[in-house]
């Protein structure tokens, strides 16, 4: 990998943007690696959490926004809790996902399928209608038979409601619409 830094470039700019979005300062990271050491999903990531922060410090946006890592983070917060400098790595991952979305970068994992399905359930019903969420995920991700075997098991244990509840759904829908409109304009 070659990094060329021109004279009129300000490497710190991306970090300052992240400071606004993720409410944490990546400049504080001194690359100790404690976040990487404790990350339960590091084994599936292409760049480790400390490397994600390093690329942010160097302003290498494309590298992080196109990585798998930001989509594999499960937000367990082990990294931020143990970081000696108080950098919120989890927050950075979260912020990078939002930036990726706003720049229309395709996510490198199936998370969007679940998030979309989940969100549309709340949008429709006000609460999460789990069979709908799973069905929606299966459709959107193309994994049509995923977890299908669990359906009858859950039915037997009466752990599934077949009928969705509508609770304040019109109000919730308005909230969704207004929030989506506003966030786009931010």
């Amino acid at each position, binding site marked *: 990998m070659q990094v060329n830094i021109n004279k009129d470039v300000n490497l710190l700019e991306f970090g300052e943007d992240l400071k606004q979005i993720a409410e944490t300062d990546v400049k504080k990271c*001194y690359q*100790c*690696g*404690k976040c*990487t*050491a404790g990350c339960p999903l590091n084994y599936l990531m292409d*760049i480790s959490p400390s490397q994600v922060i390093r690329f942010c410090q160097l302003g290498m946006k494309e590298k992080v926004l196109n990585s798998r890592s930001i989509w594999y983070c499960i937000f367990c917060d082990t990294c931020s809790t143990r970081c000696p*400098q108080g950098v919120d790595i989890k927050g950075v991952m979260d912020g990078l996902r939002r930036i990726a979305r706003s720049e229309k970068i395709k996510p490198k994992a199936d998370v969007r399928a679940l998030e979309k399905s989940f969100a549309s359930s709340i949008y429709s019903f006000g609460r999460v209608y789990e069979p709908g969420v799973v069905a929606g995920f299966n459709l959107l991700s193309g994994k049509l038979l995923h977890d299908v075997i669990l359906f009858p098991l859950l039915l037997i244990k009466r752990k599934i409601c077949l009928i969705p509840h509508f609770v304040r759904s019109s109000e919730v829908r308005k909230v969704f619409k207004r929030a989506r409109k506003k966030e786009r304009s931010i």
Partner: protein
Amino acid sequence: MARIGVFVCWCGSNIAETVDVVKASETIAKIPGVVLSTDYKYLCSDPGQDLVKQAIKDHNLTGVVVASCSPRMHEPTFRKAAAQAGLNPYMLEMANIREQCSWVHDKKEDATQKAIDLIRMMVEKVKRNKPLQNVKIPVTKKALVIGGGVTGIQAALDIASGGIPVILLEREPSIGGHMSMLDETFPTLDCSQCILTPKMVEVAQHPLIQIITYSELESLEGFVGNFKVKIRKKARHVDIDACTGCGTCWQKCPTKVTSEFEQGLGKRKAIYIPFPQAIPSRPVIDEDHCLKFTSNRCGICEKVCPTKAVHFDDQPVIIEEEVGAIVVATGYDLMKTSDFGEYGYGKYKDVVTSLQFERMVCASGPTLGDLQRPSDGKKPKTVVFVKCVGSRDPEHHYPYCSKICCMYTAKQTMLFRHKVHDGNAYVFYIDIRSNGKNYEEFVRRASEHEGAQYIRGRVSMVYQDGEDLVVEGADTLTNSQVKIKADLVVLATAMKSPEGIKELAQKLGIGYDQHGFLTEAHPKLKPVESSTAGIFLAGCALSPRDIPDSVSEASGAAAKVMGLLSKSELEKDGVVATVRECSCTACQNCVKVCPFGAISLKDIKDRQGNLIRQVANVNPGLCTGCGTCTPSCPSRSIDLQGFTDEELYAEINAMALL
């Protein structure tokens, strides 16, 4: 008749670029009383000073104003020059036309006018200045060293070598400090006790050094050269003079207690000496664990002592001493494994601190140098050393670097590999700080020749998985998570200030920071002085440092002490407050406001010895010339020499009136 000489300095371009110094000196020359007004490029230089000295003689000057930099820079320089020329040094004042004029303004015309005003103010002041004499205070030629570790020991030896008696005060039962707990020291791998105990013996045998152990400072009064200290000697319950150190008592004692010296890895008795080479080699009784004190049983030691040296009825005693100077060498403490949740909060027996590891490998340690896992006694084959535990961690513990861990971890990998030849030593590090003499070479030796394997990354968690300890770390250089199954984990925990340091500092009246480390008067130029005159600092009491630095500072502090106590009298600045007794009503306002307790009441008696009245009285030894008393007096009976009301009033008038 005032004959004032004014010298305006160019200071190269520092002043002259913004202030028209020639115009200023010409304008000042016109003030009545000024007989000489000139300018010069660098007044602080030798020729510059000669110019001033010659002018004093040639023109019979009664007062001098040097218009240049801040008096904090060169007031002593010019005052000394004036004294050499025969003029009382307090008749020389400085007008600060640099820090307070040329350095903070840019418009030449305005800056020049301001400079002229500043100089005129000082001219008017100097006209009213009175010649003052330095205050002379007597000095007690004795020193107190608080802390009996290697730093305190070195300071005591150096001060005593200058012929000054020293009291070495230590709160543990023996001197020696942390260095006596170490196995070998970097970068030479000298046996720690072998190089320390000769010094300990030297201290014990030195005719001018009095060792007082198992004691603490109770209170301090007085001022530089004249301190009165009270020392609380804890009840030892053993008569040091009668005791021969035969050891019968502690052999017979039935009570076993976790040994502090062995860092919790071994046991001692309730009557004990902390280690075999302890000085004094006389035991103490631990009242919290001795059966006689907890349940009025046993008492075997008293019965078997051949010289009847055991006395259960001993009480703490307070002794008083007078000393002229104090050195504070109170050392450090180390964080414990129980401070770290991610490493088990101290519940894993095989997760130890670096100091515990020293005891484990030390030939005089709890396992006599046979390296064993504390949990099952087996020999550890894989040892993981974790650096920066608690250090460089502003979020949870301490923001600073503990300085010595990089070096002693390299050392400990070598000590381990010397005992377990086929052992694996892994070191998790963020940086390697090895900036002393032969330090970098020492660390390279650990990894290049002695088989230490360095992995760059911090450790997130350590936990027990069956018989093994699992260390979850990272290698940022290859961007991997690194999980190691280990037999033993050694944490290089942070150095911190010792228990009770804040209370001690408050008794001494010296400053400390938010971590309890003592504050030096100037971090670069006064590294062994506190901001309280007569009290010096050395070693880890200031911040984490290694043995060479601590010993150097001990000698530095000792040199300062010897300089202070080499004279029979101390000369102090003549800028002190004085009381006009005829108008003083003894309202005690000044007594109450003086931050240094320098003012008290004096009795005025008639010829028969009857008390007529009291008046305020300033102790020139304690007075620092701060001037707080002056505005507090309703009858204007107290005034600060060198900054009297009349002088200051003249300054203000010179500036404000036409």
